[in-house]
């Protein structure tokens, strides 16, 4: 029991602080063929940005690959010989950026950040020579002003945890009863199947609901994730999602005969897709079309949209009725399928 409450909290805390896509202290190597005041200044600028950390000074560009192979260093800066002279006399000096693109995301971000820093440096050394006139974008971020990763992960974690507690736990606990033979006893008892199912499901419903409350609460108080929309609506949608997960769990238990099968099914059918296909971490629109279609049948995909809308955008029901309908439809389908399966078993 304790683990059912404690673990989600620990997970949320861990992920809230740990999982982010922001660049920080990326290890960098430098091949400085010039070693003059300009290259020094540039390196200083880069390291003081906080995004990069200088770890290796290399003699030659040939060493770069070897350093990358060791796995720590993700990018290298190569300054050409006579950098300062070229810059002052020819007014153009070259620096080459090499990245370890075995992690393309990191490589891409690193180059973007570095170019930004170099751009600024260019402006600085030319101050007074040209008018700083140019088109300047004034950016405003909607819904997540400071681009906190936590804002997008809290809804995702909420969906994952609710999915687990509700779907996995019910499917396994019912499969367990089958395995131990206690299900038979319940079935021959005067209880109606519906009562049996309700009895099995209610504790998990309660548990999940409390978990949902705790997660939203922690998101708000610990990580500052706002709840802009109606709290009641958020909770209503959460209950709907929990019901969906429970019905899915019951369905899984009707098709599996042992706990291990139930577990493996929920593991592969639920957990990984919940993480990968729901838009929790990877934006759905970047996926190839077939996967975008598949993602439509992943329940958390809809739920995540709903909670993000309510929490971060603060919109009302008129913006999420479609997703809500999908969730309701899915719940009905799973309950229908389970009842059908259940009847066949009895015959």
């Amino acid at each position, binding site marked *: 029991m304790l683990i059912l409450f404690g673990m989600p909290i620990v997970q949320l805390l861990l992920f809230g602080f740990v999982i982010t896509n922001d660049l920080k202290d990326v290890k960098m190597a430098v091949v400085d063929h010039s070693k003059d005041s300009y290259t020094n200044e540039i390196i200083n600028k880069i390291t003081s940005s906080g995004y990069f950390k200088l770890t290796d000074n290399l003699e030659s560009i040939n060493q770069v690959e070897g350093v990358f192979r060791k796995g720590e260093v993700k990018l290298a800066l190569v300054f050409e010989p006579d950098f300062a002279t070229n810059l002052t006399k020819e007014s153009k000096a070259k620096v080459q950026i090499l990245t370890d693109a075995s*992690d393309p995301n990191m490589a891409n971000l690193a180059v973007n950040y570095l170019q930004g820093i170099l751009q600024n440096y260019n402006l600085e050394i030319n101050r007074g020579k040209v008018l700083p006139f140019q088109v300047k974008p004034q950016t405003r971020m909607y819904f997540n002003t400071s681009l906190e990763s936590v804002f997008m992960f809290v809804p995702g974690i909420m969906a994952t945890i609710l999915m687990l507690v509700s779907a996995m736990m019910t499917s396994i606990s019912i499969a367990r009863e089958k395995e131990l033979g206690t299900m038979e006893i319940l079935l021959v008892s005067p209880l109606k199947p519906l009562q049996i199912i309700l009895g099995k499901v209610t504790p998990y419903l309660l548990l999940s609901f409390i978990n949902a409350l705790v997660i939203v609460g922690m998101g708000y108080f610990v990580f500052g994730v706002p709840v802009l929309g109606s709290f009641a609506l958020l909770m209503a949608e959460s209950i709907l999602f929990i019901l969906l997960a429970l019905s899915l769990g019951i369905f899984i238990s009707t098709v599996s005969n042992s706990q291990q099968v139930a577990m493996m099914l929920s593991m592969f059918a639920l*957990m990984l897709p919940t993480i990968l296909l729901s838009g929790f971490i990877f934006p759905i629109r970047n996926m190839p079309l077939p996967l975008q279609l598949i993602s439509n049948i992943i329940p958390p995909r809809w739920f995540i949209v709903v909670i993000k809308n309510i929490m971060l955008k603060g919109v009302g029901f008129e913006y999420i009725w479609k997703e809500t309908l999908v969730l309701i439809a899915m719940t009905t389908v799973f309950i229908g399928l389970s009842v059908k399966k259940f009847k066949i078993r009895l015959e």
Partner: protein
Amino acid sequence: MLPIIFVMPIIQLCILVFAATYDMKNTNLYVVDKDLSSHSRELISKFNGSPFFTVKDLGFSVDAGEKELFKDKVDAILVFEKGFGNDVDLKRPAGVQVLVNAIDASAAGLYNAYIQAVIQDYNLHLQPKLINAKTRQPIQIVDNSYSHLFNPEMDYIPYMLPGILVLLVTVIGLFLSAMNVVREKEIGTIEQINVTPIKKYQFLIGKLIPFLIIGFFELGVGLLLATFVFKIPFLGSLGLIYLVAFVYLLVVLGIGLLISTQTDTQQQAMFIAWFFMVVFIMMSGLFTPVESMPEWGQKLNFLNPVSYFIKMIRMIMLKGSGFKDVMRELGILGLYGIAMLTIAVNRYRKVS
């Protein structure tokens, strides 16, 4: 059960690899052009010309654009106020408002970066026309060029596939082993074993070997798929990968067996295994860079076997790193495995 163990992970591998991408396909823009000058049009056409952007809608009011933003129909709004073209002509700083939909923080960062890049590009294009008009003094420019090693096309699949493969091998290994001994406790066969003179380590090694084989099998199929279906260049040595996998599986199975000996029901075992699984995966650097984590998070990762394996398999496959490059990680993992198995054997009680 067998099809679930063998087939499911493979199907998952094939599907999920495509899902795990940060690659920006398309950013939908809503443009509010109150200026309607040739300059604003030029900048808009620059966006339209870029492969990353589609101008979804043109309008004259920010409110209308915001509505679309709330519906997630567009990712960003560009607003050209009246006078934008005038400012450009008069060589005054001209402003353009960029309103980004940051409901997805990591995507928003990228939208913003790309938008800035297009605008920057436009600036450069303006610059030469205006430079000689002012002073004769040459401007100094630090010019940069970049090249991406090991994966010049910046393809996500080679990066993600080894990671997801690790994940699947881990799920199978950890869960099967965590459920195993406790399952025997539940159905009662464990008593029959405990009353025999079998040694604890013999029993656990017997449990270990089948899972090791299953793990190796999954890994093998995954690597075959990687090479022949996904055409991922395989630079390192297969033997080294298997050596790493062997050591890694010892750790994972050790943890699994430890969980199994410490719990009373499969449900408990499963929940605990799930907890560690999720923590291990999320912190492993599979989806988000390890470097981005706070210091203490990275320290915690010292205890995360998944992060070692993912790091090593990526290094070996994609960069052709050799034994020397991964020696340190492999050593730590080895000690970890020995420790886990020893504890598992010790904590397994034949007598209550």
